[in-house]
């Protein structure tokens, strides 16, 4: 047991290599955590960050290994990032349109789209995006001009992610759009009487949330793996829900929350390597944290419980 705890610590915060691993794990959690926080704030239950991340990684790979292989880094890196955001936004918007136009609960549609996205990735790397050698189901490696600049083994996407947290905070709390989004999230009926269309806000919210998650996918392929393969994201989009809830849906608090879960993932990987404790136990921790965070937030603000608002318009 001590051996496992030691490995957990040294693999996360107790060594330089540990910190590097922690930061690397935190980057996608930060961006997807922001995606989930944004969606939940707007009263849309986006359980689909996982699928949106994969859709983003897929689109980024299309751009980097097929469309713009020869492009210079100055063009290619932004193009890859944009493609990722686009892919995620597409999946998010689809769930938004299904809800706005057909009344399909985004809880269900985003979950189902997760499976669609992972199948699409499988389809792509067994088919049109498979490496030139055709030996393994994975994409060609990204051209070096498509790779994110990195410091040691931490890529520049982390800086962008930090910036995004600040921007999202400003968007939510300093702009008219952010006000409308929060209004719809807190009281859709009241928002409608105030002339805000909850349907339109839902589509926009899910598209923006998907764009963030898709960007996280682009960062993963262009910053960490350098290629697309199956199992690229082992549940990042689900962990993101824990990240956002622990941060109590505050964009700036998503930063330490992502660091916490990033350290947990990095430490658990070390624990599995060195002490044979299966890394899946982190999911147990995530589940417990979600429940505790939700309970605490109810105690603190009885009038504004987490959720309880998303569907209060239904009747």
């Amino acid at each position, binding site marked *: 047991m001590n051996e496992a705890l030691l490995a957990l610590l040294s693999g996360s915060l107790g060594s330089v290599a540990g910190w590097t691993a922690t930061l690397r794990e935190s980057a996608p959690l930060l961006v997807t955590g922001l995606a989930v926080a944004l969606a939940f704030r707007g009263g849309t239950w986006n359980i689909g960050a996982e699928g949106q991340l994969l859709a983003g990684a897929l689109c980024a790979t299309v751009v980097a290994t097929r469309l713009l292989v020869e492009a210079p880094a100055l063009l290619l890196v932004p193009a890859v990032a944009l493609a990722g955001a686009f892919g995620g936004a597409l999946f998010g918007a689809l769930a938004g349109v299904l809800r706005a136009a057909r009344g*399909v609960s985004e809880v*269900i549609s985003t979950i189902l789209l997760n499976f*669609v996205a992972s199948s699409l990735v499988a389809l792509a790397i067994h088919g049109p995006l498979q490496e030139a050698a055709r030996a393994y189901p994975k994409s060609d490696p990204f051209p070096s001009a498509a790779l994110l600049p990195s410091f040691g083994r931490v890529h520049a996407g982390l800086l962008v992610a930090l910036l995004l947290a600040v921007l999202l905070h400003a968007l939510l709390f300093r702009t008219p759009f952010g006000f409308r989004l929060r209004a719809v999230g807190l009281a859709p009926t009241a928002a409608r009487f105030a002339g805000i269309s909850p349907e339109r806000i839902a589509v926009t919210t899910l598209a923006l949330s998907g764009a963030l998650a898709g960007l996280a996918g682009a960062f993963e392929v262009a910053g960490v793996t350098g290629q697309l393969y199956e199992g690229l994201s082992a549940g990042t989009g689900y962990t993101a829900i824990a990240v956002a809830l622990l941060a109590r849906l505050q964009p700036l608090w998503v930063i330490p929350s992502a660091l916490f879960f990033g350290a947990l993932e990095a430490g658990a990987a070390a624990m599995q390597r060195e002490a044979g404790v299966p890394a899946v136990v982190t999911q*147990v921790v995530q589940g417990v944290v979600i429940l505790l965070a939700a309970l605490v937030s109810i105690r603190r603000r009885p009038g504004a419980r*987490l959720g309880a608002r*998303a569907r209060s318009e239904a009747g």
Partner: protein
Amino acid sequence: MEALLEATLRLAAPLLLAALGELVIERAGLIDIGIEGTMLTGAFAGFVVAVASGSALAGVAAAAVAGTTVGALFAAFAVYGRVDQIVVGTAVNLLALGATGAGSRALYGGAPPAAPTLGALASGPLAELPWLGALLFAQTPFVCAGWLLALAVGVALARTRPGLRLRAVGDSARAADAEGVPVPRVRAAAVLIGSSLAGVAGAALSLAQSDSFTEGMTAGRGFIALAIVIFGRWSALGVLLASLFFGCATALQFRLQARGVGIPYPVFLMFPYLVTLAVLALATGRARAPADLGRAYAREAS
């Protein structure tokens, strides 16, 4: 044709059991997306007990108990703690995935043994009866249990006093409370009953459709059960028909796949989820959900 029917029923059984469980829970006014994790826990507990005891039936009982236990967790937080149901469901799914994955590795070190399984309900003359034989007796008990439970849930919801109270709580918790119905107790009971069904649905995967437990083996079937409840318009008969539809779609998928029509396999993986999305978008529109679905109820807050 007979083979397709057989496969349809076999593949529909776990979906039907899980969806009936979710139906009971949703008619009481709660959305339990943790049904996926509940099913997975049932699959794991059923497998472990069946292997240890050598009895598949003991495994099924354990699956029901495990499902009920997960349901108790959900009810404690979602009904009594009034934490948002989507949040609790997400937590339940993560907990179940992590705990069963770690448990399976700890117990079997990545190479689980084969479990005793439940075979056909009856063989011989009964199984050879026209129609009835194929529909009931040549199938595993899970299929038969599905038929009976669909009937039981349908009748209980429509015709019995507890069923009436359950629906009242789902349609208007406040009105039911005013009538003296103990809202939290009825909701918790619905969650426990529904979750035990989901647990048994999991056992159908690890003790009938296969003889093993693999990490995350429910592979989204619990989520498809959620869609089935919507597609089936919150009625037992609807849920039965919708389950058969999905069972049939999956059976057709396997058949096409086996025939090797030159379609890459990920297309088939995607198929049930795309069908579900299409069905939700096209067929249901705005079906009549229980009016208080998804809302926590607190007397002092209303």
